[in-house]
């Protein structure tokens, strides 16, 4: 039997959050953490968590699994269980709505702030805008972000200033558009980032890199943004 400890909080009932212990028979199989949650929800329908694609591409089920942020659907028990115990908490740093569901509006607000869309006001050609494979390769490691918030909620700078520091996820996306040969708003984008908080609160702690379930590297992207800022200023 596997011991599972889960963070519980229902604002309608509970004065404050608590950890609830469950036991589950996994029959020794190396299933995913999400499978465990699904099984537990059959027993206890009041257990609440988000999930959708169950294959690590939609970003719904980001949570703190045995101390590390990750996606429940692609985290096997063999990685998450320590001493026959699995501890599941919501992603840290943002308000909890209920159980493992957090209020991500602050996270999304930072994403929206970087103007996460292509800006190119030159007349569009009748076909696609051409882009060489080399130029396109610059977007690899950037466009794959699934907005799961594992990185930003692992970042102390984001914990302290979630309203001012854009956070690793938003900055990765900021660089995704800065790096796109088709985007023409580079100067405007850089100007919007050149304050002491938006980018420069990154202190290179690299928690984001450690937890990203897609293996992306926001710290590196932030470094690129900084270099672009330096170059544009000189």
């Amino acid at each position, binding site marked *: 039997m596997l011991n599972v400890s889960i963070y519980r909080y*229902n*604002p*309608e*009932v509970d004065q404050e959050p608590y950890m609830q212990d469950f036991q589950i028979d996994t029959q020794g199989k190396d299933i995913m953490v999400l499978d465990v949650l*699904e099984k537990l*929800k*059959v027993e*206890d*329908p*009041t257990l*609440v*968590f*988000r*999930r*959708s*694609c*169950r*294959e*690590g*591409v*939609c*970003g*719904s089920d980001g949570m703190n699994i045995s101390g590390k942020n990750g996606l429940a659907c*692609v985290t*096997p028990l063999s990685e998450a269980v320590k001493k026959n115990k699995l501890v599941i908490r919501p992603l840290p740093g943002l308000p909890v*709505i*209920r*159980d493992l*569901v957090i209020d*991500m509006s602050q996270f*999304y607000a930072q994403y*929206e702030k970087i*103007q*996460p*869309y*292509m800006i*190119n006001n030159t007349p*569009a050609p*009748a*076909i*696609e*805008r*051409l*882009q*060489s*494979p080399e*130029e*396109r390769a610059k*977007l690899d490691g950037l*466009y*794959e972000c*699934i*907005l799961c918030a594992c990185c930003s909620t692992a970042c102390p700078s984001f914990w302290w200033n979630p309203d001012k520091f854009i956070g690793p996820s938003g900055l990765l996306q900021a660089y995704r*558009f800065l790096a*796109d040969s*088709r*985007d023409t708003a580079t100067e405007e984008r850089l100007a919007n980032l050149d304050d002491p908080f938006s980018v420069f609160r990154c202190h290179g702690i690299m928690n984001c890199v450690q937890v990203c379930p897609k293996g992306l590297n926001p710290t590196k992207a932030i470094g690129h943004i900084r270099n672009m800022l330096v170059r544009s200023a000189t």
Partner: protein
Amino acid sequence: MANIRTMSFDAVIVGGGGSGMRAALQLAQSGYKTAVITKVFPTRSHTVSAQGGITCAIASDDPNDQWQWHMYDTIKGSDYIGDQEAIEYMCQTGPEAIFELEHMGLPFSRTEEGRIYQRPFGGQSKDFGNGGQAARTCAAADRTGHALLHTLYQGNLKNETTFLNEWFAVDIVKNADNAVVGVVAINIETGETVYVKTKATVFATGGAGRIYASTTNAHICTGDGIGMALRAGFPVQDIEMWQFHPTGIHGAGTLVTEGCRGEGGYLVNKDGERFMERYAPNAKDLAGRDVVARSMVLEILEGRGCGPDGDHVYLKLDHLGEETLNAKLPGILELSRTFAHADPVKEPIPVVPTCHYMMGGIPTNVNGQALTIDSEGNDQVIEGFYACGEAACVSVHGANRLGGNSLLDLVVFGRASGMFIEQQLREGVDLKDASEADIEAAMAGLNRLNDSTGGENAAVLRAELQTIMQNYFGVFRRGDFMQEGIAKLAALRPRIENVALGDKSNAFNTSRIEALELQNLFEVAEATAITAEARTESRGAHARDDFKERDDENWLCHSVFFPDDKRVGKRGVNFTLKTREAFEPKIRTY
């Protein structure tokens, strides 16, 4: 009790996936007050899981490519019950829709010339089947759906669409004229129930793959739009047509893109034989999906399956080399390592045909207007009601969808619906307001669930439903078996209508949502079962042991399921092309 808050919009789109967001984008750009009701944050929608690409004749891989060839492939793929007018519209408009997406920033992979990279997919040919394999599927590595969905969300952010994120539409509100004037929806976070009033209700609610036990579909693919439409008394079309994708990861059900075979991968049985050469000598592993899936099941049934239980076959990719795999199929490497514990660089992936796509849905015309059929058998537009994407059956897929055509379907018809509604709104839409009683009627199901006291666990009932569908309505079907399945479903209905609500709280109550989803799943399953039993032929994805041949005399038509009397009717297939004479049905071989 009907004293609920009303929110008003010019247009409301239910569903924040690819087609819903494409429609919303069109309307938001036009300046009309548009809202998207979506039960998950938009980028969590199932479009995100599409991998291989979006098929369209943009003439990048082959400068001489023609949309007419794509049209021919699609009609042939549909086993001739795809509406030719709709297919013509899709293939012809496609390039424009793709270039728009590119201009919006979709990070397509590129060719040396800087154009969009295209890869071969199943069922693709040049020169109307005479020029060999074509490469027509536009790709962003093997994450095309993800790239597409995020790009569309970004476009909507830019145009300031209103998003009702994590809201769940419960039922359709109809006025005295039987026109659709909005939906009742729940804000999942607070539990508040609201009447969302609008002049145009667009259902872009996606598929319902979760009616089967083994599916590539996300947990959220529960056919909510189909369930709502059926409960409102509106018919669905070709709902028996379910595509089984040849390559779902054995055990997990996770999708492995057809692009793997497009890039040169192939299937082998336990003897290491490339068996598709026997079933489809020309196209081999790139035959239509229905053909490949059936061949795989036959291999397994005839004892040539792999693994200790002989219940799957292998997809071989290692001969492509690590570099190609990393460049072209990075997502597949990740998925296979995670879910199959197999590294495709070194070993084959265990795969099995898995429920993937609902070809049927709410019948619509090319403008996205939902249709019903009157007593004389004529199409009749349902005022105020639209559908696009997988939930709709504009019928570009007929009895079998070609790989890469779903993404094209959703952008082309999401866009078309948006453009048409824009025009309607400009001309003025005059629908009677819903009465208290009308709203009350739409609340009935939810109220009954909220007041429920006894009943069985939703998860248990759902599993039972999925098992029935898997066992009786799978890749191969047989009349007596299906009748048994229908009887089992009939016995299940009262139990599902009486499902227990184990959590009555208002704060982010996912149990309530799952109970409502279960009822939607059931409606889809029942319609599927009854229609499948009625179609006494084999066509496309619908393969019957007791009627092995295609029967063009009786069944070269759409099936239409009417929920009120659970009757299966027929509707003619459109054989009118604007640009040339229609393609007549031929025997379909690959």
